[in-house]
């Protein structure tokens, strides 16, 4: 299983259930919070008599693997420290390529009308260039509209938002995350988010950036009392947050 440091799952095996995923991320997150004192977690290994579970950091991602202790440790090491991180890095690099391909595909489609003339007068072309093979008639290709960006879902740790001037219908998260969302949706301002607690309770509310320093805001969502009650969650719990594009 691969997940981001904000708790978002990137990939997992078919056998892994959603509940397992959530609990793994939640408990790992709890350790990671306290592990700041040792400079964050680079590797966590739970070694049992017959099996072992490892979670390895790969930049902003974590790879969780469960293996038998009978397995060749060198192979397991190669997989977790070399092969999978390399594949993930490659996929990350390839992720930026499709947008370039899409652009060139659009250009090809636009050029097609210019090639229609030879098709209309094939006899003339054969006379002038007897050796040249007749060009195939271009099949009409459907115009694909680029897919809208996949809605990112972030996981945040809950902090209670209190104070005299707190708006009861507004949550606050890291301004950098809001900026990323705005960038993702072509500059559309994100003012509303869907929040889902781990037990499935959902609500929609307004959004603002956290006023505090950046380091304190990372991975945290500040929620006022009323929304906490709606979600039936509390300080320290994790929630999933999805931007709503109007």
């Amino acid at each position, binding site marked *: 299983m691969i997940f981001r440091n904000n708790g978002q799952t990137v990939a997992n095996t078919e056998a892994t259930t959603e*509940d*397992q995923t959530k*609990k*793994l991320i939640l*408990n*790992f997150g*709890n*350790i990671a*919070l*306290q*592990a700041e*004192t*040792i*400079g*964050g*977690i*680079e*590797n*966590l*290994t*739970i*070694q*049992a*008599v*017959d*099996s*072992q*579970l490892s979670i390895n950091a790969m930049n902003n991602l974590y790879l969780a693997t*469960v293996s038998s202790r009978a397995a060749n440790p060198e192979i397991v090491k190669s997989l977790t420290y070399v092969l999978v991180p390399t594949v993930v890095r490659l996929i990350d690099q390839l992720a930026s390529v499709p947008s370039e391909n899409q652009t060139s595909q659009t250009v090809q489609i636009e050029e097609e009308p210019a090639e229609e003339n030879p098709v209309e007068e094939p006899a003339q072309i054969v006379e002038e260039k007897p050796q040249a093979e007749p060009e195939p008639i271009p099949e009409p290709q459907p115009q694909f509209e680029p897919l809208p960006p996949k809605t990112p879902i972030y996981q945040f740790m809950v902090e209670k938002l209190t104070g005299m001037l707190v708006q009861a219908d507004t949550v606050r998260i890291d301004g950098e995350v809001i900026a990323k969302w705005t960038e993702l949706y072509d500059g559309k301002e994100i003012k509303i988010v869907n929040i889902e607690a781990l037990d499935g309770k959902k609500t929609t509310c307004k959004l603002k950036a956290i006023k505090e320093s950046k380091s304190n805001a990372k991975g945290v969502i500040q929620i006022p009392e009323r929304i906490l009650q709606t979600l039936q969650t509390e300080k320290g719990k994790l929630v999933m947050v999805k931007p709503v594009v109007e």
Partner: protein
Amino acid sequence: MKQKTTIATISEPPENTESVAVISVGAENAEFANLTASLTEIRKLKGVLGYILRSNNSAIIDLNEQDKIIEYAILSSQIAESSLEIAKQFSVTDIESVLVEGKSVKVLCMSVGENRISVFMEKTATHAWIIKRILL
């Protein structure tokens, strides 16, 4: 300053040596005493920064950095609790050890009977030998 603080049944006077904090609380049992002896030996190893030994009614904290005692104690407790939950989810039973590696320090957590051990060490230190020594 080496500070040996004793509460409850164990009583030793404070010693003035190097900057090490040792806090002992509660009454010991035989297993606890054996582990204390092993950990005292482990503590002398190069790269070992200290340890926390805890049972239901006793605890010893021996760490180089006094200002991190609370943070390290919370971390070791969180590792013990959360790693059990993670292991349970993936049917990893009979846990021998949990190793958490940070940027500069790594923590080895183990449970022996009712006793919980956390050994803090530099990343270059060999933890495999420590596991063997404790499981002896």
